[in-house]
């Protein structure tokens, strides 16, 4: 197994379980299941034991490995320099071993099969991939400045589609030249990679790169931070070199330059950092800049923010596999409770996966009426429409 030489070097000091301010557990799987086995250190030692044949490939072992949502909190908080950079890679390598052995949880198996057969995790037809854009006048990419890449959730999930349309409208309204590939693109594969199916990820990446390169794509705007991560950080090793932007990075400077006047009542907003924008790519400010450039927005921070943010629990494929389950301590429910504690009326997100995860959790936690999940372009559109 790749990275097996580092597994024993984890001391299990436990900094990886916490955010930098220590306020509560911040590892999503550990928060949800509580057993030490689900902590990053427990997972490291279990992997070592599994390689040493002290542990069998049980269903529970599989669940423990796939409960990691790749949020990167452990990497952020680990106190061991250099070693920390390989933590997630070791977990992904462990998953890869299980994938190669064909021993993965059924939900993971089904999800990967959908990616394999349909190019998306839902198992929907590829030709429906541009369904989100049907009522919009969005061009097929040809000589546009940017390719707009909606990703799986933006393409197929009904809430994701709403967000995708909202972002596309705002891009258009601000004169951004962009086109899409629709049915000619496949999943960005970020979650496939996180689930350890590296060959399938390579296939998906190469399919997209073929399409992008054939049309001489140079710049890409992604809807999803997950796609942003894959295309920016992983595609180059398969020959896909592009300037990659998350839409917040495009919209924030434009909105900041404009002056809006509004009589609308102030809106108290707390912003949730997506792991793949924040911890994985160090992008903490674009969404905040966008929000604070809008009139009437009162931005308040949760106790866990920026590099200490608690993950929504949707990464690592968990939005599709639901390995973390729906218990009261799952990170999604915990996070919306934390958001509500700020007395914000809006939980703002810049990721369609986070939006889908949180909207369910708000209902489960019976916080409807107290806090609403909104994506940042929706907030911007709402305020700009009312402003003069």
């Amino acid at each position, binding site marked *: 197994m790749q990275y097996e030489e580092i597994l*024993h*070097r*984890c*001391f*299990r*000091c*436990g*900094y990886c*379980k*916490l955010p930098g*301010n*220590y*306020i*509560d557990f911040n590892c999503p799987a550990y928060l949800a*299941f*509580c*057993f*030490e*086995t689900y902590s990053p250190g*427990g997972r490291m*030692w*279990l992997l070592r*034991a599994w390689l040493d044949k*002290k*542990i*069998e490939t*049980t269903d*529970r*072992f599989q669940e*423990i490995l796939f409960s990691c949502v790749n949020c990167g909190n452990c990497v952020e908080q680990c*106190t*061991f320099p250099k*070693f920390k950079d390989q933590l997630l890679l070791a977990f992904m390598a462990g998953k890869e071993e299980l994938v190669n052995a064909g021993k993965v949880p059924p939900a993971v198996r089904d999800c990967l099969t959908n990616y394999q057969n349909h190019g998306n995790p839902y198992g929907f037809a590829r030709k429906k991939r541009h369904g989100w854009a049907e009522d919009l006048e969005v061009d097929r990419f040809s000589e546009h400045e940017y390719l707009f890449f909606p990703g799986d959730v933006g393409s197929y999930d009904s809430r994701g589609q709403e967000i995708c349309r909202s972002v596309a409208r705002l891009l258009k309204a601000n004169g951004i030249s962009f086109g899409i590939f629709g049915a000619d693109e496949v999943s960005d594969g970020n979650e496939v990679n996180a689930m350890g199916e590296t060959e399938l990820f390579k296939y998906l990446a190469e399919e997209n790169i073929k399409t992008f390169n054939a049309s001489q794509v140079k710049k890409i705007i992604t809807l999803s931070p997950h796609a942003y991560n894959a295309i920016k950080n992983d595609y180059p090793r398969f020959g896909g070199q592009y300037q990659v932007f998350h839409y917040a990075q495009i919209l924030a400077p434009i909105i900041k330059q404009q002056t809006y006047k509004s009589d609308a009542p102030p809106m108290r907003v707390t912003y949730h950092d997506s792991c793949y924008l924040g911890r994985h790519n160090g992008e903490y400010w674009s969404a905040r800049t966008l929000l604070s450039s809008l009139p009437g927005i009162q931005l308040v921070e949760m*106790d866990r923010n920026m590099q200490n943010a608690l993950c929504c629990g949707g990464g690592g494929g968990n939005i599709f596999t639901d390995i973390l389950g729906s*218990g009261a301590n799952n990170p999604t429910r915990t996070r919306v409770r934390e958001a509500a504690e700020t007395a914000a009326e809006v939980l703002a997100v810049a990721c369609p996966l986070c939006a889908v995860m949180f909207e369910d959790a708000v209902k489960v936690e019976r916080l409807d009426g107290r806090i609403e999940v909104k994506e940042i372009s929706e907030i911007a559109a709402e305020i700009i429409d009312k402003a003069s």
Partner: protein
Amino acid sequence: MKKIVEKLVNIVGAEFVSDQPEERYIYSMDPGTMPPREPDFVVMPGNCEEVRQILIVANRDEIPVVPLGAGLVLSGLTRALKGGIILDMKRMNRILEVNETSRYAVVEAGTSQGMLQAYLKKHHPNLKHSAPDAPPVATIAGNVSIHGSGHLSHAAGFHSDMLNGLEVVLPTGEVARIGSCATSSYWFSRAPLPDLAGLFLGWAGTTGVITKLAIKLYPSYKYNDVGIFVTEEAQLIPDILHRMTGTQVAEDMTTWMAPKPDWAKGFLHCDINFGANTKDELIWKRNLIRASVQEYIDQKVAGFMPLPPAMKQPFLEVPARTLSRFADVRRGGGFEYVGAIMPVDLFPEAYKVGLEIADRLNVNYSLGSRIIGVNHCMMFFYAYAFNRADPADVERAQKALEETNRIVVDMGGIPWKAEAPAQKEIIRKMDPNMFDLMNRIRAVLDPKGIMNPGNWEED
């Protein structure tokens, strides 16, 4: 076994009970050198009533029970030496009360040092508790119950000295409150009642399960500073510490001696942490400490290390994040230490012994001490790093620890949170009547011997 699982599931719910090989493996050891001992079950209670019901089942069926905080004791005290239940307390982590005026906090036993620290910073910024240098996931109850020490130990003693009261579940299932909380709704002190807290402090979990506790809080200063006093002469240290602690203005005093970094080799460093409400007060305290050791400075046998502000930061951090990195010295993820509680007079001998053992057994070492009270005693630590992937290296560290424990006892010190073999070394030197009294007390509290068996036992 299946029936026991069913009973436990009925108490805490299926998601908080495991008899699976993965949990049994991970809970069989801690990060130190002690060999693994598998529990049969891992159970995570959510409240005192669940703990009570678990102990009733365990007592009736004679199942060993081992309470566990964060599992960071390093000396293997939370291994299930005779199988049974590991009682993982982390779900019981509520901060129940902070009394700002009387400066105490009441917390559940699974509350971590980090959680209380963060809670106080947010809600009571003028208060703090004495945090150990253990990682912040370490629990308050775990550290108090082993007589831990921390960043206010010079000012206020062992963490067990800072305990105001306890709620405990006895091995037979009764819930008892100890301290003022036994007769009042306030958890303000253990006096003036008979002090039964001692029945649960230093016993390595062999007398019952702590479910709640109150600890003293202290002023959190706006201005904080650290000085590092350095000498090459170990025999001067007891008097240096005596003089500096005599000023009673510092919160924490620690010493450290390590071969790395290179600039530190051969020197004995004494860190003095102090705080104040104003800059003037801080300068006044700094001057008092300096004046106390001016004689040594004038003789040029010791002096304060010049410390630019950026260099001070790691020494002011609580807990010190970098301490865990000692585990990577041999790129092997392991270290363990003997923490010897002993009089400060023994410092030069303790230091000499540490160097001699490390040199003879060729182990990477870090030595140091924390002053408890106004130089009343110290916790002298001998930390040895090891590579857990190399059994010979683990064995070498084990040997160094065993030898250190033995020498410490013979020197007149007492190993703190001692491993089961080291406990036997202590018993060897202990007044037989004290050990007999311990056994008689345990027989009353725990007639079936279910609580962490294998600890505080003779061969």
